């Protein structure tokens, strides 16, 4: 932490402590000109900004104007009062996971992964599951401790549950990339509802991942964990191993 900072009232840092500088860029649906600039400034001032420096106001066609603005906020945040929900990921390497699972569980952990509903994007799912992994971090298929079934994209939640039963899954891993109009919430909820209805929710470690997924959201929806942007396959592997090993059998 930076020394001599009052954590009870911190402001954004531009180039001096608590100067409150924020960069903003946005578009107004009006033609460029003096009136558009004034409108943008008025809008920003109404949000509690001062020292408004409009460094760009540009006609971007179709009667839209694009602005880049630097301004100082009069708001601050009490850092000491902030609490977050984060997934606890123990430090465990691939060998340690393989050893511990084979020693204590004495079988492979069965993981079933899919993107559900209308989501056709498998990039996230594949990065976590495929042998190759992501950025040199091996995917779950590489772990001897895991038996992975990657069902691919656009799997209806009901089908996913059916397959999970068939494969005797310990873990269901769902990836959701498309989040437009909150469609992911509906699909993720549907999956939990089905697991509840079939009375197998407790038997399964239920995980969701995606660029706009937070652990907090996941827990709220009834998942055990949520993994957001920047998650590496090894994070997910360590979390799964830890939870499976701690599970009373």
């Amino acid at each position: 932490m930076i020394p001599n900072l009052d954590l009870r009232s911190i402001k954004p840092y531009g180039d001096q402590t608590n100067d409150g500088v924020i960069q903003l860029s946005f578009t107004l649906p009006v033609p460029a000109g003096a009136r558009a600039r004034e409108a943008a400034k008025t809008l920003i001032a109404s949000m509690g900004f001062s020292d408004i420096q409009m460094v760009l106001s540009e006609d971007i066609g179709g009667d839209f104007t694009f602005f880049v603005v630097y301004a100082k906020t009069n708001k601050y945040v009490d850092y000491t009062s902030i609490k977050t929900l984060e997934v606890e990921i123990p430090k465990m390497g691939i060998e340690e996971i393989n050893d511990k699972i084979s020693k204590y569980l004495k079988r492979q952990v069965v993981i079933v992964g899919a993107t559900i509903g209308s989501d056709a994007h498998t990039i996230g799912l594949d990065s976590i599951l495929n042998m190759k992994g992501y950025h040199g971090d091996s995917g779950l298929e590489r772990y001897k401790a895991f038996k992975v079934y990657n069902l691919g994209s656009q799997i209806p939640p009901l089908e996913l549950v059916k397959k999970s039963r068939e494969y005797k899954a310990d873990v269901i891993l769902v990836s959701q990339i498309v989040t437009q109009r909150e469609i992911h919430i509906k699909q993720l909820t549907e999956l939990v509802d089905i697991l509840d209805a079939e009375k197998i929710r407790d038997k399964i470690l239920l995980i969701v991942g995606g660029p706009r997924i937070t652990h907090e959201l996941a827990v709220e929806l009834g998942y055990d964990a949520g993994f957001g942007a920047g998650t590496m396959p090894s994070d997910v592997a360590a979390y799964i191993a830890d939870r499976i090993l701690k599970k009373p059998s």
Partner: protein
Amino acid sequence: MHLDLDQNLVRKARELAKEITDDVQKFIDLRSTDSVERTVARFYGIDGVDADGIPLPNSVVYDVKAHDGLKRGIAYWIANACVAKSMSPQEVAESVGKKEFSLVEIRPQKESIVAEKIDELTEVSIKKLEETKNERDDLLKEFGDPNQPYIYVIVATGNIYEDVIQAKAAVSEGADIIAVIRSTAQSLLDFVPFGPTTEGYGGTYATQANFRIMRKALDEVAAKVGRYVRLTNYASGLCMPEISAIAAIEGLDMLLNDSMYGILFRNINMMRTFVDQYTSRLICAFSHITINTGEDNYIKTSDPIDRAHTVTTSQLINEQFALKAGMEPKYMGIGHAFEIDPDVENGLLYEIAHALLTRSLFPQATPKYMPPTRYMTGNIFKGYAQNTLYNLVSVMTGQSIHLLGMLTEAIHTPLVQDRYLAISNAKYVFKNAKALGEDVEFKKDGFVQEEARKVLENAVSLLDHVKSVGLMASIEEGTFGDISRKIDEGKGADGVFVKGEDYYNPIIEKMEKIVRSGEL
């Protein structure tokens, strides 16, 4: 800049690709699909939905199929009903939609009169399509074809009217091509939705009405900016030929159209896709619609450097399928992409080699180049820099269809300013590096030359392998995109059938005759 490629190897690659596709074409020629038949219904003017919202082309095809008559082709049944009932195809379809009668139960009319009716309907349909095509060609001449690389941007609001607002803004800033991204999972619908739509997920439904609305808007703004603006949509999925049909009717300029994309990335049945892509491409060839192939997708899932040759292999296969559909090379938007990990040392050099290889292998085509997506992160500022490098490679290697990268890729569908910033970036780079490609030669036996040579050699060995096992078996092996699909698996398999001895598809026959004779 040019590559010292072994021309014998290039010839060998093409010969192998031709032999590979010859085998598949034999398979295709014996078959038709529900979607191909619905396409004929659409060309005969059948449109709209029944009381349950089922599109009438689906109603008539389903009706004939349920009565086991589809082996003969839908054209005969429609014409026979028109003669018997003294109705137009649309009136016939509406009656079938209301379950007033089944086409198969109508008494066969005198053969010569039905044949005459078929000729008449086909004649009218072909004439209309030719008029639309000529109108587009004339407009292109009148407004003038923009310089390449064409600046291609997407709109994807889900609401066609909102799309129009954004598309017009993009054109006035310099966009040459507007693509309306489809709603997620439309490719898996076994029908084409009807009417203007204002709700969609991650995009806007491809419907004939939406095509018409955007076409009209773009023509208006083209007249204003004095530059031809191309309209693009997506023909992948279970309705490839139907989407091509409505695109041809409404005068679209381009369609995403890959011979294998649906199989690999949407798990659509292999037989269905191969049969559908043929009719779909024939329509594109006939109506001068540029196809964009989907090789960029392979290197989203597998390594862009190690597997670069799979892109080349698929490009050559796609080219041969397009040639079989009678397509002129200038309508082939051969796909590839800049997906190399930005942390790779000399990644730019690899990319130049790959992009230049595509350009050199297909000198008459209009390559479609796709921006970074895989390694785009929430760091939009770095993303903007990645797109700058992509723009540079595109202009220096002479790509044709340049899909702009958005700094918010992987975050959300583009905001209006994202698109503006992307266009500014591309215009800046294209102008600054305009003659770079003409002025630079790569060192003989240097990095770029060596890499391109290696990719071509690997592609030839892969083609050799695909030739020996057959294309379908090699897809089962997971040759492309590291994805394996089985011949009888996937969606839409039940919509494929072997043509009967009396099968007749007059529209397709007429189109084949015209594109092959070069009458166009």
